[in-house]
C-alpha cells in the first residue's frame, strides 16, 4: 500500500452532527482526531449567503446540497421475492454530501424521544401483555433509557441553540409546553419561536377537542445566542428558506454554524474533505479495526490508521460500511440469523390536506421547524387496549415557508393540474392550502432489512446497499388510526372548507413517495448481541474499537424527527469513550 497517513488516535467517517460532536468531545479530551468527509467544504459565507440562498430551483427542486444518486444510490424492493432496482433519480432520501452532512440542510425539528420509545418491549408487555404485537414485528429495548440520556439531550440542545418551551420541568407540568414529554432538568436555551396564523388556528381547534398543543422544539434561534462552545449565532429572520437550504444567518443549528468553527481552531483536529471511505480494515483476528481505506478527490487510495474508528456517515451509509468492512454478522432473511441490516424501519405518515376558504396564511414567512403539535395520540400516551397496534403519531401543522415550485400539485382532489383552472386553484391554495401532518412511530419487522446488492455497484466498484421494505400490519393500523384523528382536528380548525385524508401506508411503499426522509435502524443498539450490532454505548459487540453513531442505532423510530436523539446518543457515546474506554480499551459491556 503506497499511501499511508500518520496514525490518528481516532478516525471519524462522516462529518455531520455525529462526527462533529464526537470530534469536538475527543479533541477537547486531547485526542488526535482525523475526520474524513466524502462531500466538499461548505460554509454560510461562501455557499449560502442571503444573496444566493433564496433560490428554490437550486436548493430545493435540484437539491444542490443533497447526495446525488450518481455518487451513491441504493437499490430497492418491497419484498424478498422481487429483484431490487436502483432508485436512480431524486427520491425521498436526503443524505448529506458536504461538510456538515444532513445537519446543514435539515428542517431543524429538535426532539427528545419519550421514555417509552427507548423501552417499548418492557412497556408494552407491562401495559398490554404479549398479544398486542403483530406477527414478525420487532420490538426490543435499546439498552439505554431516557433518564440515561437526559443530560446529553440538554447539552445537544444548548450546542445547537434550540428554541422551545418546557412542558415537564423537574416533574412540574408547565402550561404551553408538551405535557407528554420526558422530565427535563432545565428549560430550553432559547424561548419558542413566534407563532403564526396557521399555528394559532390549529391550537384553537386542538384545544376545542381537549388536546394539548405546544410549539415544536426548533433549531432556529429565536434570538441572538452564544452556545457553550463559545460560538455566536444570529437570530432567525423567518425567511422561509430552511429545509434543503443552508442558513445564511447562522441561525439554523448545524454542525457548520455550531461546532465546526471551534474544531477549526484545534491543532489536534484534521479534516480531509472530498475523501470517500471505502471500508474499515480489520486485523488478522477480525476483532480489531486498524483504520480505514479512503479515496481522495484525485482518485488516489490512502490508508488512515487509527486506534478508534467512528462510523458517523448517516444511517444507510453506516450500515453499508459495516457490511463492506465485514464487521458483524450480516442479517440473513431466510434463516433469521445475523444482525447487520436487521431491524430497518422508517416513519409512518398519515393525516390530511386542508384548504381554507378565504385565509391569508402568508406561508412564505416561516422557519423549518416552526410548528405546533399535539402528542396526545403519540407513542404510548393513550390506552391502546383493543386497538390492535402499538405506537401513534405526533400531529402537527408547519409554517416552514412556501414552495412555489414544490407545491404546484398541492390542490383539492379533482383539480386540473394545468390550464387556467389550475392557475386559479393554485393561486387560491397558495394562501389557503396546507397540511395536518401525522408523523408516526415505525416499528421494524423481520421482512424489512438492508443488505448488499448482488448486482449494482458504485463508482468504486463496491456493491450498493439494498433496501427491502414495506409497511407492516402494525404500522398500517396506527396510520389509519392517526388519519382519523387528523380528520377530527382538521374539522375543528376554524375556516377549513375541504379536508382531504392522506395515508402513505395505505399502499405499497416507494422511495418516490415523498412522505418522510427519516431512515432508521439496520445497525441497532441493544442488550443482546443476537439481536443488536451495538451495545448500549453504540460500541460494536464484535469489534470493540469501532463505534457507530446515527439513526442506524435505533431499533424503532418514535413519532418524532430523529436528530435530537442522534445528537444525545453521540454525546453519551463520546463520554463513555473518554471516561471509560480510553482508560481500559475493550468491550464496555460484557455480552
Amino acid at each position, binding site marked *: 500500500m503506497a499511501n499511508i497517513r500518520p496514525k490518528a488516535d481516532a478516525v471519524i467517517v462522516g462529518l455531520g452532527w455525529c462526527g462533529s460532536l464526537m470530534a469536538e468531545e475527543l479533541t477537547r479530551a486531547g485526542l488526535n482526531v482525523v475526520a474524513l468527509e466524502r462531500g466538499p467544504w461548505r460554509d454560510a459565507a461562501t455557499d449560502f449567503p442571503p444573496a444566493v440562498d433564496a433560490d428554490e430551483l437550486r436548493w430545493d427542486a435540484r437539491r444542490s446540497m443533497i447526495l446525488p444518486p450518481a*455518487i451513491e444510490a441504493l437499490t430497492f424492493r418491497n419484498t424478498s421475492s422481487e429483484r431490487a432496482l436502483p432508485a436512480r433519480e431524486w427520491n425521498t432520501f436526503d443524505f448529506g454530501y458536504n461538510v456538515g452532512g444532513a445537519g446543514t440542510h435539515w428542517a431543524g425539528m429538535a426532539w427528545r424521544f419519550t421514555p417509552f420509545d427507548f423501552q417499548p418491549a418492557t412497556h408494552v408487555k407491562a401495559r398490554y401483555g404479549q398479544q398486542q404485537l403483530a406477527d414478525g414485528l420487532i420490538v426490543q429495548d435499546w439498552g439505554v433509557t431516557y433518564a440515561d440520556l437526559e443530560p446529553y439531550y440538554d447539552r445537544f440542545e444548548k450546542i445547537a441553540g434550540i428554541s422551545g418551551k418546557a412542558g415537564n420541568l423537574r416533574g412540574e407540568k408547565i402550561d404551553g409546553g408538551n405535557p407528554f414529554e420526558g422530565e427535563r432538568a432545565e428549560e430550553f436555551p432559547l424561548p419558542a419561536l413566534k407563532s403564526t396564523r396557521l399555528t394559532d388556528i390549529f391550537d384553537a381547534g386542538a384545544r376545542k377537542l381537549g388536546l394539548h398543543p405546544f410549539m415544536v422544539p426548533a433549531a432556529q434561534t429565536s434570538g441572538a445566542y452564544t452556545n457553550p462552545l463559545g460560538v455566536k449565532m444570529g437570530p432567525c429572520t423567518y425567511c422561509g428558506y430552511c429545509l434543503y437550504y443552508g442558513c445564511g444567518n447562522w441561525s439554523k443549528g448545524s454542525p457548520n454554524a455550531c461546532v465546526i468553527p471551534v474544531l477549526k481552531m484545534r491543532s489536534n483536529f484534521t479534516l480531509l474533505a472530498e475523501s470517500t471511505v471505502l471500508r474499515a480494515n480489520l486485523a488478522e483476528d477480525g476483532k480489531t479495526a486498524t483504520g480505514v481505506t479512503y479515496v481522495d478527490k484525485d482518485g488516489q487510495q490512502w490508508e488512515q490508521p487509527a486506534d478508534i474508528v467512528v462510523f458517523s456517515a448517516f444511517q444507510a451509509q453506516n450500515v453499508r460500511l459495516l457490511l463492506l468492512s465485514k464487521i458483524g454478522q450480516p442479517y440473513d432473511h431466510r434463516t433469521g440469523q445475523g444482525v447487520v441490516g436487521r431491524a430497518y424501519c422508517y416513519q409512518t405518515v398519515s393525516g390530511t390536506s386542508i384548504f381554507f376558504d378565504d385565509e391569508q396564511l402568508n406561508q412564505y414567512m416561516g422557519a423549518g421547524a416552526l410548528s405546533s403539535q399535539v402528542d396526545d395520540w403519540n407513542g404510548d400516551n393513550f390506552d391502546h387496549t383493543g386497538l390492535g397496534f402499538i405506537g401513534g403519531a405526533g400531529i402537527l401543522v408547519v409554517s416552514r415557508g412556501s414552495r412555489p415550485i414544490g407545491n404546484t400539485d398541492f390542490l383539492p382532489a379533482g383539480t386540473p393540474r394545468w390550464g387556467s383552472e389550475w392557475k386559479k386553484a393554485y393561486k387560491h391554495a397558495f394562501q389557503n392550502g396546507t397540511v395536518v401532518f401525522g408523523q408516526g412511530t415505525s416499528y421494524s419487522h423481520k421482512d424489512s432489512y438492508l443488505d448488499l446488492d448482488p448486482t449494482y455497484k458504485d463508482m468504486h466498484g463496491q456493491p450498493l446497499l439494498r433496501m427491502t421494505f414495506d409497511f407492516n400490519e402494525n404500522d398500517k393500523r396506527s396510520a389509519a388510526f392517526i388519519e382519523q384523528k387528523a380528520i377530527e382536528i382538521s374539522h375543528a380548525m376554524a375556516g377549513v372548507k375541504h379536508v382531504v385524508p392522506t395515508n402513505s401506508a395505505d399502499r405499497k411503499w416507494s422511495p418516490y413517495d415523498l412522505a418522510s426522509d427519516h431512515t432508521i435502524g439496520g445497525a441497532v443498539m441493544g442488550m443482546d448481541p443476537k439481536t443488536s450490532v451495538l451495545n448500549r454505548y453504540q460500541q460494536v459487540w464484535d469489534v470493540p474499537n469501532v463505534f457507530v453513531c446515527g439513526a442506524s442505532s435505533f431499533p424503532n423510530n418514535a413519532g418524532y424527527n430523529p436528530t435530537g436523539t442522534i445528537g444525545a446518543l453521540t454525546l453519551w457515546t463520546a463520554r463513555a469513550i473518554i471516561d471509560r474506554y480510553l482508560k481500559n480499551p475493550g468491550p464496555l459491556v460484557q455480552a
Partner: protein
Amino acid sequence: MAAVAGTAASVPLLRAANADADGAPPAGTPAKWEAGAANPALPPRSGGLLYLTATEAETLGAIADRLIPADELSIGGKEAGCVAFIDRQLDGTFGQGVSDYRRGPYYQGTPEQGPQNKLTPAQRYRAGLAALAGYCQREFGKGFAQLDAATQDKLLTSMEANQLALGEVDSKPLFELILQNVREGFLADPVYGGNKDMASWKMLGFPGARYDFRDYMDRKGEKFNFIPVSLVDSAS
C-alpha cells in the same frame, strides 16, 4: 457553468461518478478558493437556443401556452420564458442527468421502483418531441404548434392519461417531465431565464428572494403587497 448543480467542485465528481470504475479521476476541480467563484448567481446566457432546435422550441412554446395559458391572472408560459428556461436546463447538468445513477443493467421494475430511464432528460426531450411531431403529422398533417387550442388540449390530456400512442415513448412520463419543467420555468427565480418580470410571483403574492420577515410575523393574516425581488437584483 453549472450554477444549478452545486459548487464547481462537485460537478466534476458527478460526471466521473458514472464513468467506468477504473476511469480517470475527476478533472477540473479548482485548486484554490476564489472569492465569489464557487457560487455566482449567474443570469442565463442570452442569445439563441443552446440545445433545442427551432421546431422543438416552437412546439414547447405551444405546449407551455396550454399548460400555463395567458389569462387575467398572468401572461402565458411561452411569454414568461419557459422555453428559454428549458433550453438552458437541457444544455446544462439537469439535461445531462448528472445527478442520476446511470449504471446498468436496466430493467423495467414495479411502479414503486420508479423510473429506470436509460436516456438523459435532454435525450428524452429529443425523442419525445420527435415522437409527438410524428404523431401530429400522421394524424393532422401539421405540427403541434399549428393545431388549434382545443385539439392541443385533447392531446395533452391524452398524454397525461398515458393514452397517446407515441411508439417507443411512454406519453405520461414525457408529459410529467415537460409539465415539471414548464412549471419550473414559470415559478423559478427569473435569474434562470423564465418567470419574466416575476409574473408568477405577482400572481401568487409571493415576495421572492426576501430574507427577513421579523417585522411582519406578528401581523398575522394581513394581506401584504410585497413587491417581489429576484436574485438578479443581488447579482448586479
